[in-house]
């Protein structure tokens, strides 16, 4: 009953906020800057409260001197390091020459030349197919798809060509030096075609790796690992974090291993798993759980979606007995279902409650309904409470 009341209160609060079309007031603490503010670069316009607050990690001193960077700057830094180190590396995609629509390739064409950083026509299937061809000869191809929502014309190339090249040629050929980068996830106003999280489509395809960072520091290290990995990789960049996430990031290159999830907070009662932007949502949920329920949460950032780190997640669930997985993508067939299925196979007798998935609804990503669609902290908190009280 209390749960219902709380849920209703949460929904009413959201509805009231939506009706006023303002998200300020008590939630102003979460004000973050949106990407590409309408006033142009440098305009200090504050967007409305987002559904999360970016939490930077403590500065890492093990890789040398660091610099304050936001997500797109850390991507530029990784690409800069790659082009400097690897003379065969090329970057291509729509509008990358002038710096990219999200500023990820700013300055690279001037620095490395127009034969290494160049625009392609508007043809995603062609971009990826062309990238596979470059990679097959051994050169390093870094392809940009302008929004993850546009990756679908290239789906055949990725699934049928890139993922199967090594296998079908008996390791005679491969396109391991291909990395595809794409902005990913909700952004507050992206609607149907600028907000999608398609990682689950690619998780179903053996032969490729899918990686999603939660922060600038993670992004640079993971992207460099993807570029140097000997398998074709898809690197999804949470576009809402491009400007909102700011951290100290090492200037020199460094790598963060793929297929290794990170336990970013240890706990004993519930395991929370997410990736990308959603990691920051569940961090807040963990704080709420500690304050209001006295519950200790273990937070895991999956980082690599496929092949994913089964051991880290299962080890955690063996300890806590409860698992909540959250992602923006729709519930049915979302990657949470894969994690849930594997964990119940491996840790069945350790589970104290059914595994909970807090995800987007099974609808296209909506236009006006985005605040109601996304799995925000209230929905996650509600699901967590149900698990605790099971």
């Amino acid at each position, binding site marked *: 009953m209390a749960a219902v009341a709380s849920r209703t209160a949460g929904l009413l609060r959201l509805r009231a906020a939506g009706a006023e079309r303002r998200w300020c007031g008590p939630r102003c603490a979460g004000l973050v800057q949106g990407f590409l503010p309408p006033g142009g670069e440098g305009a200090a316009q504050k967007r409305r409260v987002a559904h999360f607050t970016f939490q930077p990690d403590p500065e890492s001193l093990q890789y040398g001197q660091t610099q304050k960077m936001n997500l797109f700057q850390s991507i530029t830094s990784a690409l800069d390091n790659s082009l400097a180190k690897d003379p065969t590396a090329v970057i291509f995609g729509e509008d990358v020459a*002038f710096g990219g629509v999200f500023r990820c390739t700013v300055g690279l064409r001037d620095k490395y030349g127009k034969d290494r950083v*160049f625009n392609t026509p508007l043809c995603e299937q062609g971009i990826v197919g062309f990238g596979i061809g470059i990679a097959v000869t051994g050169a390093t191809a870094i392809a940009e798809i302008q929004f993850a929502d546009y990756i679908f*014309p290239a789906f055949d190339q990725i699934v049928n060509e890139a993922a199967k090249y090594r296998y079908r040629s008996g390791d005679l050929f491969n396109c391991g030096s291909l990395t595809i980068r794409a902005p990913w996830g909700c952004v507050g106003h992206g*609607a*149907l075609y*600028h907000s999608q999280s398609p990682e689950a489509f690619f998780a179903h395809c053996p032969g490729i790796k899918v990686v999603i960072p939660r922060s600038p520091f993670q992004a640079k290290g993971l992207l460099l690992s993807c570029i140097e990995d000997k398998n074709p990789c898809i690197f999804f960049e949470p576009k809402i974090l491009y400007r909102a996430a700011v951290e100290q990031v090492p200037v020199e290159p460094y790598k963060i291993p793929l297929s290794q999830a990170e336990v970013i907070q240890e706990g004993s009662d519930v395991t929370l798993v997410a990736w990308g932007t959603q990691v920051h949502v569940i961090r807040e949920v963990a704080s709420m759980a500690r304050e209001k329920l006295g519950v200790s949460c273990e937070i895991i950032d999956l980082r690599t979606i496929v092949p994913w780190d089964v051991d880290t997640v299962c080890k955690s669930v063996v300890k806590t007995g409860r698992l909540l997985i959250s992602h923006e993508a729709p519930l049915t067939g979302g990657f949470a279902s894969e994690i849930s299925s594997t964990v119940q196979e491996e840790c069945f007798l350790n589970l104290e409650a059914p595994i909970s998935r807090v995800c987007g609804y*099974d*609808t296209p990503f909506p*236009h*006006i309904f985005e605040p109601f669609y996304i799995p925000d902290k209230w929905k996650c908190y509600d699901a967590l409470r149900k698990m605790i009280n099971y």
Partner: protein
Amino acid sequence: MRKMLASLVSHVFSGVNQKPAMRGLLASLNFSNDTTCDITKCDLYRLEEGPPTSTVLTREEALKYYRAMQVIRRMELKADQMYKQKFIRGFCHLCDGQEACSVGLEAGIRPSDHIITSYRAHGLCYTRGLPVRSILAELTGRRGGCAKGKGGSMHMYAKNFYGGNGIVGAQVPLGAGVAFACTYLGNTEICLTVYGDGAANQGQVAEAYNLSALWKLPCSLSSERIATTQWARLSREQQPNTDYHKRGNFIPGRKANGMDILCVREATKFAAHYCRSGKGPILLELQTYRYHGHSKSDPGISYRTREEVQSMRSKSDPIMLLQERRRNSNRSNVEEWKEIDADGKKEIEEAAQFATTDPEPALEELANYSCTTKKK
């Protein structure tokens, strides 16, 4: 005699504030005549003959086109303003500067014909019959919007108008399919499939050309060439062949001045007639220009100069070109234009008011229309 009298009266009263009674007199004397206009010859590809090089513009047509273009212009500028005020959020692609394309395309076909286009669709939405208030309410995501507030800028639909499509080039095979349905159902309707120059490089567009030609579909493929693709200047970097009307290879095509509404109208009428006669698809390239950037996050001056935009506004503005035609043949009535302007302004203001006060769709709408359980 009538002409002499008319021009005398016009001369006497020009520049003087006219009293209402006089206005009535002027209207009946001067301005009921048609204008014969010369239009630029189209570049032709695989066609023996093209659209005519002169056409008649009646007074009614002139006023109708003027009104439509003015409303579209004001609507886009209002959308720009509302975006800056954060009533409209997300992605908003404006078509001010391209009014002659939407109004001209519509003028060249019948209401029973079909149109499908890209995300830069607000102009065609209006010409296809959507009231301004339903367009602006869709932009602000309200229940009075033409897609119940669920689609936004890029997804607006009306009878015989299939959107409004977000993915570049994806609408072109759909247009071929609609054209196929026209043939299959045995009506004489055609499908106008509109896309931008960026889309011309999508593989599926080549596939649609092939399908249309193979099955002789009544598909008029209209490329709105604005010489910029999203953010980058159109150049050899994007494609070796920038003659879009020739890109269909085996499909005939013609290139027209997309800033001149009469040029667009005649080229479209020609295309429609060609398709209706069962000869198959035809390409139409319209050279046009958008004043705003690609979307609201593009200032539009990183790949072109402000001076270039200004120059287009002052020399090739479609509304101005239409007015000039009437003026040059002494057929224009400043008062009539002003009345239309005032009327249009009122319509936009009322629509904007509606768009900002109409309630948002009910929460239940979130899940509505994903699938249906209706039986056929």
